[in-house]
């Protein structure tokens, strides 16, 4: 026979002599008829009261923190879920944007590389532009002088060619001008041309 919690409390109260008369008579009858009740009282009297009570009520007492933990766990889990959803979406959105940016950047870099390659390839295969074919009074400005052995800055079939300029810290501009008789009809000029090499007086002007 399993004793109920109320019965156990009554048995403990009976053992301590704290039961009212009517309850004491009922518990006395129970002790006469129930072996479990008698053993319970014997164990109660034999053990340390505090430890025994704690042990006897352990299932109920331990249930409380379990439920509390469970509830708290549920609450925390829900909170985590609620707080996770937006950040996850945000993270996914950021990842999508990052992928998009990387894709666009990669695409642009590839396009620029191809353009540069074809431009360089075409420049390599084309002889220097004859200065005479440039527009009248056009200027080539150089921020850095070409090194020794560099290609001519300007080449004409006849006319003045500038092969190399180095003015150290001075900025350099090269102006092409029609030459001689061509100068009189500059707009139609395709003849030989000359140059004005302009070097800024100010140092570090480049």
């Amino acid at each position, binding site marked *: 026979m399993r004793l109920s919690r109320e019965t156990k409390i009554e048995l403990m109260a009976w053992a301590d002599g704290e039961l009212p008369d009517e309850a004491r008579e009922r518990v006395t009858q129970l002790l006469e008829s129930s072996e479990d009740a008698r053993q319970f009282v014997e164990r109660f009297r034999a053990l340390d009261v505090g430890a025994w009570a704690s042990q006897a009520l352990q299932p109920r007492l331990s249930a409380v923190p379990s439920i509390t933990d469970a509830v708290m766990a549920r609450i925390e889990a829900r909170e985590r879920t609620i707080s996770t959803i937006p950040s996850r979406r945000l993270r996914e959105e950021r990842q999508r944007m990052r992928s998009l940016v990387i894709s666009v950047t990669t695409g642009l870099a590839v396009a620029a590389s191809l353009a540069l390659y074809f431009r360089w390839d075409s420049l390599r295969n084309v002889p220097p532009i004859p200065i005479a074919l440039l527009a*009248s*009074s056009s*200027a080539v400005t150089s921020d850095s*002088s070409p090194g*020794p*052995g560099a290609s*001519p800055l300007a080449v004409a079939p*006849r*006319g*003045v*060619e*500038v*092969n*190399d*300029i*180095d*003015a*150290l*810290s*001075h900025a350099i*501009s090269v*102006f092409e*001008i*029609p*030459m*001689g008789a061509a*100068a*009189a009809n*500059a707009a139609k000029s395709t003849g*030989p041309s*000359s*140059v*004005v*090499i*302009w*070097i*800024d*007086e100010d140092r570090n002007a480049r």
Partner: protein
Amino acid sequence: MTRRGCLAAMIAMGLGPAVSAPLAVAGTPAPSIEIGVIHAQHTDGSAFIDPRLREIGQHLRDEPFVRYNVYRLLDHTRLPLEHGKPVALGLINGRTLKVTLVESKGSGVDRRYKMRAEIAEPHQEAFLKLLEVTAGVDEPFFVGGQSYDAGTLFLELVLRP
């Protein structure tokens, strides 16, 4: 290394004149260099172009000549050139123009000359460290930009036979 690279390296090592001199056609006299020192100013007054500056007179609408309306010829010099030997001209601003005939190619009217110019400045680094130009005779070119007397200097350089 390409031939051009070798040549550049030898020139850098100071062997330029020794290498370039044989490139000149033997027996052909070297040209002279004619140097005109021109002072250009922009004034609010009337324009003035020295009548001896015929070439500039044709380019007054072109950059950079269009910036000025007064042109005066300050100096006019003709110096004989020899391959690999620099000739020098003291300029009015204290700097020195050096011109060296480096190489000549072709013959007759197609003969062309490669020359180097330098504008040195006392006690300072060169205003123009190197200018290398190829031109035929009677083909002038200009070097401008040096400040002088509220204006600028143009150097007109032209090879003469």
